[in-house]
């Protein structure tokens, strides 16, 4: 098992649940036992949850695994059936689970400039929190979910916040233009400045960042900068291994890779999506938790099981006290209708349809109706 986070832990649990009682080695390059990332931009960053609240293992949970933590996997040798580690060791195994997740994209030229952060790991969150509590002006580059959540948390902590988004509408990719505009209007509702349709040219500052320079010539003063421009799958260690890579590890609808005895799960894996008819890399918590079950069934059966159709992808986000939930695929929808609530109240249940059939659903503070639609989506699409 390579990658010791949510997908790796879920795969380890599935292995034991499905009756595998042999040796299990979990390799992870972070020093921490598996922890929960979503609170890193929310409650943990706000200071209302501590590190002990983030652990993903239950009290007393024992998977009888050997944890090799703080060491990076550098290669997979399929012929020798071994994973190579950065410290020169090799781990031999009969089956391999790739669960190396994703890493935050950085802003070129920001290396070594104090005050500039990305947010992916517990260590990132600690460092950012230490600066946020001192207050000041925060500029968030990228109006995606993580950027928006950081903005919302920092606003609640009393910082002066600006969000910069290169696209005309934030979240248009995952939510579509219409609803992306509704959700990102939460920033303005709270007096957080949102600048759209303008790229970032660079950062200014000697050792400490002091401003973000925009392509239109403006300069936005900043004490702290958070770069939230997405994540890239951590798969470079697999190059040359024979595992086919294409925006992550290319997988079948049950996590099988191009190599026998190797499956991939979580943010690093691009599974074939039978509903969409193409491969998709899903970067959501629920996928990393649910899908390993199917992947492990495939691994244990030597690929001899017929893949089922996984539930439509689901994710949530919490911003400015509003619970945002989304399931399905917005791309490919030809209409969006508000079935309940009102966009102006930021209390909405919106259904995305393609040729009249529901393909996705978005809820803002609508958990009850959202669940009804989410179930329906799973049953029909």
């Amino acid at each position, binding site marked *: 098992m390579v990658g010791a986070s949510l997908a790796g832990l*879920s795969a380890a*649990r599935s292995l034991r649940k499905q009756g595998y009682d042999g040796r299990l080695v979990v390799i992870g390059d972070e020093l921490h036992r598996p922890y*929960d990332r*979503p609170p890193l931009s929310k409650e943990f960053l706000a200071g*209302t*949850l501590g590190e002990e609240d983030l*652990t*993903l*293992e*239950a*009290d007393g949970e024992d998977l009888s695994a050997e944890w090799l933590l703080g060491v990076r996997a550098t290669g997979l040798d399929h012929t020798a059936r071994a994973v190579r580690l950065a410290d020169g060791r090799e781990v031999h195994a009969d089956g391999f689970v790739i669960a190396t997740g994703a890493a935050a994209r950085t802003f070129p030229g920001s290396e070594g400039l104090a005050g500039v952060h990305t947010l992916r790991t517990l260590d990132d969150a600690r460092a950012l929190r230490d600066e946020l509590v001192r207050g000041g002006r925060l500029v968030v580059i990228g109006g995606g979910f993580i950027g928006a959540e950081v903005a919302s948390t920092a606003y609640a902590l009393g910082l002066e916040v600006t969000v910069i988004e290169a696209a005309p509408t934030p979240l248009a990719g995952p939510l579509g233009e219409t609803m992306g505009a509704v959700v990102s209007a939460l920033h303005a509702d709270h007096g957080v400045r949102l600048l759209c349709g303008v790229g970032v040219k660079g950062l200014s500052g000697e050792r400490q960042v002091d401003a973000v320079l925009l392509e239109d010539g403006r300069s936005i003063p900043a004490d702290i900068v958070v770069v939230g421009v997405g994540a890239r799958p951590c798969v470079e260690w697999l190059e040359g291994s024979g595992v086919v890579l294409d925006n992550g590890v290319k997988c079948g609808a049950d996590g099988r890779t191009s190599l026998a005895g190797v499956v991939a799960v979580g943010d690093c894996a691009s599974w074939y999506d039978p509903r969409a008819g193409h491969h998709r890399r899903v970067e959501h*918590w*629920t996928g990393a*938790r*649910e899908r390993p079950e199917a992947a492990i069934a495939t691994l244990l059966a030597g690929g001899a099981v017929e893949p089922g159709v996984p539930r439509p992808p689901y994710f*949530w986000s919490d911003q400015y006290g509003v*619970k945002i*939930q989304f399931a399905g695929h917005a791309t490919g929808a030809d209409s969006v209708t508000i079935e309940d609530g009102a966009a102006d109240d930021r209390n909405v249940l919106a259904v995305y349809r393609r040729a009249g059939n529901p393909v996705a659903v978005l809820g803002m503070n609508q*958990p*009850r109706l*959202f*669940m009804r639609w*989410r*179930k329906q989506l799973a049953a029909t699409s």
Partner: protein
Amino acid sequence: MIPACPLADLPRGEAFRLETDPPVSVFHTEDGELFALDDTCTHQDASLADGWVEDCWVECPLHASKFNLKTGEVDAPPAKLPVRTHQVVVEDGMIYVKLSTAAPNLPHCVARKLAGAGT
């Protein structure tokens, strides 16, 4: 015993939420069994009545921890504590709940709110 609702008003696969403090939900499974649990997830402020019921489990509508309807046990984090279970009685077509005397496992945020409301 607290009256919930007539059995005829609670179809299989549905849940009924009682506005007790803390709230309690009665679940009617597809197999026709009735169970009562504290309605609030032990992780954060989510109503389990809005959850996804499959077999003997209800999945939290927010972050997918599952609770066993019979025992209240949780399958895996992010929720870490079981929910409290209550006894269900049906008399003359009416569903009643006999509240447990055990302490509930409310999430931090809800417990704080309740404590705050009392002062």
